[in-house]
């Protein structure tokens, strides 16, 4: 169904409902994170270490975060981004409001099915290469709302997650540990895998 400016609000609601239903029925299983690029075979056979090192150094030193924060874990992230915990040392202090500038999405908070299409769309509009951190119990499994009809049981139903950070909410230190893990993962990337 096409949405136009002269569509009634009922039409728009119905269109949105259909989108959500479609997404919900198509994402019953977790999205597997494509881990082919982590295999060691290619690395052993082809030596491109310097190029990879330079590229990965650049990528891991400027992980810009998309501001797509859905619930309360956000406050731990805000705390992390301010002076006490200071993610500026990782070159991450730039929070982008446009997915075109961002290469990391931190899923801070409970995700409802109503919000799920938007988050998926924002992720799809981000530039390559992109990474996702699932933050908190709700981000991983849906947390205490896992049985609810309206809550997505874990972001991995709609996005491929790179790093999981447990906690309800995780302390900023835990988030720092997760970011460290992600940086290690970025280091392993080789441009041959695309």
């Amino acid at each position: 169904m096409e949405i136009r400016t002269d569509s009634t609000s009922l039409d728009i609601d119905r269109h949105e409902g259909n989108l959500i239903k479609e997404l919900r029925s198509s994402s019953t299983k977790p999205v597997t994170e494509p881990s082919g690029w982590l295999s060691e075979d290619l690395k052993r056979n082809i030596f491109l270490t310097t190029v990879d090192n330079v590229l990965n150094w650049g990528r891991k030193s400027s992980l810009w975060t998309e501001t797509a924060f859905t619930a309360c874990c956000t406050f731990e992230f805000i705390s992390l981004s301010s002076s006490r915990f200071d993610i500026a040392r990782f070159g991450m202090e730039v929070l982008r409001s446009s997915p075109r500038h961002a290469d990391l999405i931190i899923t801070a908070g409970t995700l409802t099915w109503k919000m799920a299409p938007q988050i998926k769309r924002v992720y799809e509009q981000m530039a390559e290469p992109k990474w996702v951190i699932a933050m908190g119990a709700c981000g991983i499994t849906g947390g205490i709302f896992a049985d609810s009809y309206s809550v997505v049981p874990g972001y991995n139903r709609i996005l491929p997650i790179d790093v999981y950070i447990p906690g309800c909410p995780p302390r900023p230190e835990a988030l720092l540990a997760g970011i460290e893990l992600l940086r290690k993962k970025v280091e392993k990337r080789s441009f041959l895998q695309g």
Partner: protein
Amino acid sequence: MLSEFSLIALFILIVMGFATTLVLIPQALKKIGIVPSKPSEVKYEPYECGLETIGETWVQFKIRYYFYALLLITLDITVIFLYPWAVELKNLGSSSLGVIFSFIGILAVGYIYAWRKGALEWK
């Protein structure tokens, strides 16, 4: 005489070269395959906070905004001049009071003119 400006010409050339290189580097890296390119339909659609666009994305803004922006700039300039004046008021003495009031008076004339002309009304 004109040769004195040759440095500026050189500067313009360097700036243009620099800008072009910055635009071309990602394109070249994409051609080689270093920068991953995974185009999709959704990726190239306009970004509207994750929502689908309803209607046209390229809309014309009302010209009224321009008047407001212009009037706001005059207000900003008033504040910019008033602030250092207020800080240095003790040293400048009472004569500066007349100067600043005449300055505000000039701006006020402009404001009153805009007001009387109806620039502050949203039509």
